């Protein structure tokens, strides 16, 4: 229609594009964000200064370079992050040939799609506001490009705001009633879902202390039975039994049948439900130690009593578990297992190995060796700190004999090494410790800052026994959590310091809202839909579609009626004019129509010529009309005019 694109429209388009991309710009690699910003700025300036658009070869080269850059950055263009980066770049490059209305329509469609990619990364509550703001802004641009010449933003934003508001009820109805099918349809890219921090399957000094900086939620727990004491809340994660001198890892987490660990239950069972945030790894967390016969359908327990799902957790998932806090794990040892958990890299940490050997000789008993180590941590000046000094090649030696300042991974690593040196089978277990009770929702929140590492030693007759050397150094870490255990001068992460009672309350309230949001909206899938709709008797596909159709049709009809009412002719304010219109409508039946270029007097003159029989009445009505409309004549009232018009029968 109108191919010319006004400058103002273009600038507004660029603004909305920047708004839509802004969350991506903060996440993308720096060069991508810079390139996009440069392209946007260039387009804004080029329109103002009327610089020529780049020629085809330059555009081709830029596009190829951008694609190549993405491949170099991500290794492919097919992943979620690479795809998003590519989409953003291509949208920015499209600006180089943005000239006409048609291109704006294409850009608008691209922006709607860009908005969608944002939700692959984050679906928190605030994204609803982002969704609505962007939808209104993008739609306003679409409205503007339907008009020749720039429209005022107040008008377009108002119109698009009204449209979005009218579409909202439809959105909710469709969200609830549109039949959901279990995904995925074609499989997900490896990097699908949000990028998150979390535990990894290796542990080096500094790994866990960096996690403490994050207040992201790892999972939420709701107990069906009485919750255990905070100090007993060890959430078991990856079990690491191979040490290469610096890093602990689990080379082969064996999950094949026949390798299940033997477990004896001793105490009360604990029943609970975990809502796990996606962490892109295969393991699930459970209270130390889950029962093997109550695992979720797709989970199995590895040889090291670690819960493993068959696929990486890329979506928030909820599962129920039953655990025993008092148990005996693998009371009978195999030779393989003992050998595995005594292995030590040679030529690392000679002092530590020497100390272990000495203890073996002097103490002899495994349990006493464990006690000796814990006593050493307790009695010698070891410090529990978030900012330990960096360690060199013989990390355990330096930590145990020189620096003596460390975080939980330092203690767990050194302790396990010491045990192995003293011929006590030992391994490192990572996971989370503790949790914060949300009193509003009655559930516990476990955050990344609760990440922890401890040890397990194998004692004959007792099996694997959990030993937490951190508890020996800083018992308050286990009792009260990370906040209570670090001295104020240490510089706790900002979110952990200065928590007032009020702030605590609001945080709990906010987390509760988030949990409801997760449970009711984000988790709304096939099962929840079935569950929810069957309350209203809509339990099969047919009735769902029927209800959807009926409600959408009714809502559409309602909106249509409102809009049509607004477009109806407004009542004429001037009563004289109203009567005159009634009169001309009557004459219209005779084929007499007042032309646009004809005043009332001229029109009546024509009527007199064509229909002399009417002339007397027509002239009277004309006189009454003119007097009422243009003169302040008290002799002739509108009532007279109305009467005269009514009396005219044709």
């Amino acid at each position, binding site marked *: 229609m109108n191919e010319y694109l006004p400058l103002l429209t273009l600038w507004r388009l660029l603004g909305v594009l920047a708004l839509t991309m802004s969350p991506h710009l903060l996440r993308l690699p720096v060069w991508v964000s810079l390139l996009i910003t440069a392209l946007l700025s260039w387009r804004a300036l080029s329109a103002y200064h009327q610089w020529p658009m780049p020629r085809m070869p330059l555009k081709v080269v830029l596009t190829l370079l951008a694609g190549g850059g993405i491949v170099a950055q991500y290794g492919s263009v097919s992943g979620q992050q690479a795809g998003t980066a590519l989409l953003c770049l291509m949208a920015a490059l499209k600006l180089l040939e943005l000239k006409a209305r048609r291109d704006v329509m294409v850009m608008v469609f691209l922006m709607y799609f860009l908005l969608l990619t944002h939700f692959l990364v984050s679906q928190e509550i605030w994204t609803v506001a982002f*969704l609505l703001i962007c939808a209104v802004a993008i739609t306003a641009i679409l409205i503007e490009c339907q*008009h020749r010449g720039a429209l005022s933003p107040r008008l377009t934003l108002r119109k698009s705001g009204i449209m979005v508001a009218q579409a909202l009820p439809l959105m909710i109805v469709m969200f609830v009633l549109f039949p959901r099918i279990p*995904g995925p349809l074609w499989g997900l890219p490896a990097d699908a879902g949000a990028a998150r921090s979390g535990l990894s399957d290796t542990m080096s000094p500094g790994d866990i202390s960096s996690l403490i900086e994050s207040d992201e939620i790892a999972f939420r727990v709701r107990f069906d039975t009485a919750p255990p004491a905070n100090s007993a809340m060890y959430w078991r994660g990856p079990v690491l039994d191979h040490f290469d001198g610096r890093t602990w890892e689990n080379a082969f987490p064996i999950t094949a049948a026949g390798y299940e660990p033997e477990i004896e239950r001793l105490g009360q069972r604990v029943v609970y439900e975990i809502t796990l945030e996606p962490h892109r790894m295969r393991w699930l967390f459970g209270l130390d130690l889950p029962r093997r016969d109550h695992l979720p359908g797709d989970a199995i327990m590895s040889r090291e009593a670690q819960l493993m799902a068959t696929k990486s957790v890329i979506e928030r998932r909820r599962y129920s578990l039953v655990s025993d806090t008092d148990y005996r794990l693998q009371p009978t040892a195999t030779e393989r297992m003992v050998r595995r958990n005594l292995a030590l890299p040679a030529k690392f940490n000679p002092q530590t190995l020497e100390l272990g050997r000495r203890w073996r000789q002097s103490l002899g008993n495994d349990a006493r060796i464990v006690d000796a180590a814990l006593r050493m941590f307790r009695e010698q000046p070891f410090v529990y700190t978030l900012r330990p000094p960096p360690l060199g090649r013989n990390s355990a030696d330096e930590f145990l004999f020189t620096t003596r300042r460390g975080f939980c991974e330092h203690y767990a690593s050194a302790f396990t090494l010491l045990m192995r040196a003293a011929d006590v089978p030992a391994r490192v277990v990572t996971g989370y410790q503790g949790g914060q009770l949300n009193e509003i929702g009655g559930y516990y929140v476990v955050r990344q800052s609760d990440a922890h590492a401890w040890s397990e030693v194998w004692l004959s007759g007792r099996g694997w026994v959990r030993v937490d050397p951190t508890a020996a150094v800083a018992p308050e870490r286990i009792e009260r959590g990370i906040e209570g255990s670090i001295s104020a001068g240490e510089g706790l992460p900002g979110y952990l310091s200065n928590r007032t009672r009020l702030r605590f309350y609001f945080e709990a309230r906010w987390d509760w809202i988030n949990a409801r949001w997760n449970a009711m909206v984000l988790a709304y899938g096939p099962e929840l839909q079935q569950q929810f709709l069957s309350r209203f008797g809509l339990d099969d596909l047919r009735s769902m579609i029927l209800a959807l159709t009926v409600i959408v049709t009714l809502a559409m009809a309602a909106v249509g009626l409102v809009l049509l009412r607004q477009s109806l002719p407004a009542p004429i304010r001037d009563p004289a004019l109203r009567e005159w219109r009634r009169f001309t409508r009557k004459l219209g039946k005779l084929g007499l129509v007042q032309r646009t270029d004809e005043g009332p007097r001229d029109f009546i003159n024509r009527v007199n010529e064509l229909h002399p029989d009417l002339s007397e009445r027509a002239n009277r009505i004309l006189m009454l009309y003119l007097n009422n409309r243009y003169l302040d004549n008290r002799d002739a009232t509108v009532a007279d005019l109305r009467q005269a018009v009514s009396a005219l029968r044709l």
Partner: protein
Amino acid sequence: MRLWLVFKILLHPLRAAQDRIDAWVMARVKRQPGPIDIGRKRVYILPTRFGYGFALLAFVMLLGAMNYSNSMAFMLTFLLAGIGLINMHHTHANLAHLRLQAGTCEPVFAGETAHFQVRVDNPSTAPRYSLALSWPKQDEHAQLGDVSARDSVTLTLSQPASRRGWLRAGVFSLATEYPLGLFHAWTWAELEMSCLVYPRPAPAGPQPPASAGYGGLSSSGRSGQDEFAGLRSYQRGDTLHSIHWKSLPKLRTPMVKQFAETLDQELWLDWSAVSALDTEARLSQLTRWVLDAEAGQRNYGLRLPGQTLAPSHGAAHRFACLKALALFQTPDHDDAA
């Protein structure tokens, strides 16, 4: 581009069907004196190609949302679907209950373009935007306009006038795609509008033959053509440039300049004086002479078979002569008077 071709081929049966429906509907559009109220039932609406693209976009988003089981993506998809559906009503309401009236149409010469004015009244309190007036299926040549609440706007339809006589305006369409361009709403209407088309003036050439042309008084010689002869009072139809402006403040009534030739010479433009040519060529020649005579400020009369216009001059006389020439031996269907 190639993808678009595929769509075109795929949509061809649809288009063919639509063309037939359009033809059927258009044949039933009544020619009316106006005003025409664009009632709810007179508004037709179909998706544009951007509308189909939008639906495809929403569908792809739906697939994406299903694949990732992403609730927010579902929300966006359903919001867009809702906006698309709501937009249909907005586009429809942007056109409904407008009122069409025939405006003026200035006469033109054959070979020129006739401009039919159509007044679009908005009797409602809702302003309307991006209304496109065009001949049916020629939206790309449409004239666009907005009309605010309780206001009206005049839009123009253009049509080349090739033959003299009355040129009837046929069926036209008023369309809109506002606000989102996803739907095309239109109405077809035919107003009783006709444009008077004068014959095409012959190129400047032979003067009217004196023997046949002059009657009454003898000429005082061609040199007297520009001789100022005095003033007379203004009559309706005198051109603006013949008014003697200088005397206006003094005399309070407009006076018109008179020249020697216009005083005493009466030029007769006679059909039989151009006997050598066929009808249309004769009319063209006579048209040229009328224009020349009027430009030369002379009194001229027109003699056509069965019709004689007494010598005079001025805009009204010129119009009468040209109209007589335009309608000479044409079937009279003067419905616009």
